[in-house]
C-alpha cells in the first residue's frame, strides 16, 4: 500500500502558486494509484523550474542536460523495461532545444511517460519567450511583443504518429493525475502536455485565463480518443484549448520490437565471457 508520502522527499520551493505544485501532486497520486515502488520509478528531468522535481520526489532520478530527457529516458527504459520511466520537461526543454529528441522518441513509441509542463515562458532564466509563448506577448526577450508563432506539442505529436496524446491542467490535479496514470499504463509513448501557469513571469496565462479557455474533450458529445480526425479538430479549435485524453491507439512499443526478451532486461544480463562462442565469431576473420 503506497501513500503520497512514500514519494515525498522534500517540500518544494517553487514560487507560491506555481503550476508545478499541481504536477508534483498529480504525479504522486498516479504513483499511489498504481502502487509503484519508489525504486521501480525513474524520473528523468531536463533543465528549467521543473528540473527541481527530482530534489523533491523520492524515486530514482536523472537530472541531465537541457532538452535531452528523451534519449536518456529511452536508454533507461530499453535497458530495464520493467521500470516505470517518467520524463518531465518544460516547454523550452521539450518543444525548443529538445524538439528533435521529443519527436523521435515519440515516433519510436518508446514506453515512456512524458510530462511536458508548459508555462509558455522561460521562467528559470527570468522570463524570455518560449516556443509556446503567444504571438505578440511582451517578455524579457521580446520587449515589443513576440514575433514567433507558437507551436502546439499535442498537435505535433498527433502529426508524428503519437500513440497516447493527452493534455491536462495543473489547476485540475485529480484530472491530471488520472491522465498521468493512464499514460503510465499505456504500452508505448505517452505525452501529457500540462497547461501550467507561471505566476511570476507570465501574467497573461493565469489559472483564471486557462479556466476560461479549456475544453474537456470527454464532455464533447460523441468524442472518441480513437478517432484521429476528431482529435485533429479538437486540437485546432480556434477558441478553446482541448484537455483530456485527446488521442490513443495501440501499436507495438519500441521495447517490444527491439529487445530480444523483455523478461530478461539488459541491466541484469550475465556478462560472463563466452569464450567458445566468441571464438566462433573470430573464426569468421580467418
Amino acid at each position, binding site marked *: 500500500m503506497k501513500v503520497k508520502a512514500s514519494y515525498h522527499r522534500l517540500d518544494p520551493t517553487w514560487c507560491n502558486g506555481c503550476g508545478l505544485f499541481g504536477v508534483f501532486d498529480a504525479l504522486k497520486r498516479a504513483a499511489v494509484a498504481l502502487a509503484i515502488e*519508489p*525504486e*521501480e520509478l*525513474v524520473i*528523468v528531468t531536463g533543465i528549467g523550474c521543473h528540473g*527541481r522535481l*527530482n*530534489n523533491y520526489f*523520492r*524515486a*530514482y*532520478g*536523472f*537530472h*541531465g*542536460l537541457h532538452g*535531452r530527457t*528523451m*534519449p*536518456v*529516458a*529511452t*536508454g*533507461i527504459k*530499453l*535497458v*530495464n523495461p*520493467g*521500470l516505470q520511466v517518467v520524463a518531465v520537461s518544460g516547454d523550452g526543454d521539450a518543444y525548443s532545444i529538445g524538439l*528533435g*529528441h521529443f519527436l*523521435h522518441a515519440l515516433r519510436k513509441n518508446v514506453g515512456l511517460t512524458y510530462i511536458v509542463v508548459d508555462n509558455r515562458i522561460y521562467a528559470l532564466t527570468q522570463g524570455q519567450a518560449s516556443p509556446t509563448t503567444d504571438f505578440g506577448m511582451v517578455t524579457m526577450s521580446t520587449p515589443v511583443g513576440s514575433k514567433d508563432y507558437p507551436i502546439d506539442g499535442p498537435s505535433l505529436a498527433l502529426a508524428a504518429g503519437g500513440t497516447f496524446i493527452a493534455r491536462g491542467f495543473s489547476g485540475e490535479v485529480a484530472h491530471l493525475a488520472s491522465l498521468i496514470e493512464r499514460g503510465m499504463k499505456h504500452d508505448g509513448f505517452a505525452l501529457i502536455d500540462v497547461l501550467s501557469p507561471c505566476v511570476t513571469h507570465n501574467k497573461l496565462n493565469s489559472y483564471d485565463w486557462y479556466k476560461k479557455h479549456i475544453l474537456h474533450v470527454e464532455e464533447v458529445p460523441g468524442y472518441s480518443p480513437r478517432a484521429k480526425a476528431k482529435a485533429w479538430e479538437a486540437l485546432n479549435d480556434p477558441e478553446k484549448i482541448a484537455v483530456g485524453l485527446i488521442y490513443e491507439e495501440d501499436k507495438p512499443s519500441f521495447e517490444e520490437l*527491439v*529487445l*530480444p*526478451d523483455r523478461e*530478461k532486461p*539488459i*541491466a*541484469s*544480463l550475465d*556478462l*560472463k*565471457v563466452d*569464450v567458445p562462442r*566468441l*571464438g566462433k*565469431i*573470430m573464426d569468421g*576473420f*580467418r
Partner: protein
Amino acid sequence: MLSNWPTPEALEWTSQDERSMIKDLAVMIAGKAGDGVLFTGNVLAKVLKRHGWEIVTSRDFPSNIRGESTCYTVRASLDKIYGLSDQVNILLAFDCEAILAHLPEIAANGIVFCDGQGMTTPPPEQTLGRTFHRFSLRALAREQFGQEIFKNVIALGALSYVLDLDASLLDGIISEMFLKRKGEEVVRKNVQAARFGYDKAREITAETERHPLAKKADDDQVLISGNEAIGLGALAAGCRYFAAYPICPATEIWQWLVHYLPGFGGAVVQTEDELAALNMTLGASFAGARAMTSTSGPGASLMMEAFSLAGMAEIPAVIAHVQRMGPATGMPTKSQQGDVLQWIFGSHGEFPRIVLAPGTVGECFELTVRAFNLADKYQCPVIILTELDMGQNFRTTRAFDFSGVRIERGKLLSTGELLGTADFKRYEITADGISPRSLPSWKNGVHLAESLEHDEKGYRDEDPLNRRRMMEKRMRKLDQASPDFCAPQVWGCQKAEVGFIGFGSTLGAILEAVEQLRAKSVPSRFLQLRTLWPFPAAEVRAFLAESRDIFVVEHNFSGELATLIKSQVSPCAELNNILNYSTLPFTPREIVEPVLRSRR
C-alpha cells in the same frame, strides 16, 4: 592480455634488399568508385592472408558512391608489418587514369595491367624496367561470361597466376562469399572466371614477370579492421547497448555489432543525432548496461555536451571516435589525427576523462575491453581514439585471446551489499574519489544522477565547501590510476639518438621508417603512446631524456600531440614535428627524409 603483438626485441628487421626477394610485396587495384575495387581488394587480401602472409590494406576512396577515382592497396609480407611500404609492385587498373596517378609508386621491376582503350606503353625512359600489359578485363568478361561484373574475379585469377598463388584458395573464398547468398551456379561461374583470368595472365605475361609468393603456415592469424576489432572487443567486454548515428568512418563498428548484440541479449539503437547517441548511452549505463557509442568529427562535436554530463554525473561511458579529416564536414573518407585535444581538453567545465589510442588492430580489441573496465572502475567517460586508416583498413593479427578478458565493474554494488548499507550515498566522498553505485530498481539505492553540482546523495547543492570537496573528489579519481593504463611502448633499437613519438595508425609508417633508417645506419627508437590521457608524463620525460633528436609524427597540421607533450612535460626538450595533413596516410619515406635532412 597485451601480448598479441611481438615485442620490439622479437622483431627481426629485414633490409630493403632482402625484401626484393619477394618477402614483401604490394598490389594496388585502381579504378573508379563502383568498379568493384573494394571487392577485388578485399578478396585479394583474404587470399594472401590464407597464403600465410601478413597483410596491411589501405583504401583511398572518395566521399561519393560512383564515378570518382579510388584505389585499394594490399601489402603482404612474410614479416610482421603494420603499415604500407613506399612502393607498389603490381598495379591492376580498371582505367588508364590510375596508371598516370600511381606511376611514381610502381617499383622498378613492377608490373602494370590496365583495362583501357587509350592504353599505350609509356616511353622506355619512363618505364624503368616496369612492364605494361593491356588487359581488356571488361571486354573479356562480357564476351566470356556475359556480364562485365566478372572482370573482378578475372582480375583476381590473373593476380593468382602472377603471384603463383594456390588457385584453390581463391576458389574457396569465392564459394564462401557466394554459395549461401547466390547459390551454386554463381559460384561455378565465378570459379570459371577466376580460372580464365589465371590462364589469360599466363598468356600475356612472361614467366620472368611473375612475383611468386611462398606459402606459409597460417599461424592462428586473422584479417580484421580496427572498427571490427573494436566491435569484437565491445562484445567480449559485455557491451550490451549500443546507440549511434551513421557517420563515416565509424559506422562499421555499429554495422558489425548490429549482427551480434541481439544474439547476446543486447540492443542496438539508431538515434536521431549524436546528441541523442551519447545521452542515450548514458541513460543505458545509468540503468546498468555496459553501453557504448561511436562517432567521428562532427558527431564528436555534438557529443561534447553529454561528455561533460558523463563527467559530472560520474556515469561510465565508452565512446569510440574514428577520426576523419576536418574541420567541419572536411573530407569524410580521409584519415586524420586532428581531434586529439578535443577529447583531452574539450567540453565545458573540468572533469576526469580517459583517452586511449590503439596503434594496432590487436590493440583496438584489447583497449576496447580495457575501456569498459576503466569506465566502470573510474565512473567516467573513456574515449577510444582511432583514425579512418585504422578503422576501415584490414590488418593481420594473432586471433584474439578471449580467455584473457576480465569483466571488472568497479564499485558497482551487489543488491545484497546495498541492502546492508546503512546510508547509501551515490557520490560518497572517498579517499580514492570513487563512490559506490546502485542501479534503478535496487532497494535501498535510490539516488539522483545529477548534472548540477550535488551533495553525496546526488541532490543539488550550491554550498561553496561542498563544491570544493566534490571537485576534488571527482578530479582525484585518476590520481592513482596509472597502473591500470596501457604504458607507452618503446619500439626499435635499444639505444638511439633519434627518437620518434606518435600514436595510433601512424605506427606502421613509423616502424617502417625505423627499419629504413637502420638500413642506413641511423638507429632510431619509437615511443608509441597508447594512453593519451591521463598523460604518461614520466615515460615521455624519460624517453626525451634518452634521445637527442626528437620527432613527433602526427597526421595533422598543427602538431596536437607535440602541443600536449609541451603542456605536460616541463621543461621540455626541443620537439621536431613531422606532420602530414594530406589526404593520404604517411609513407615511410615521408618520415625518413626529414630525419636524414636534419642530420646533414
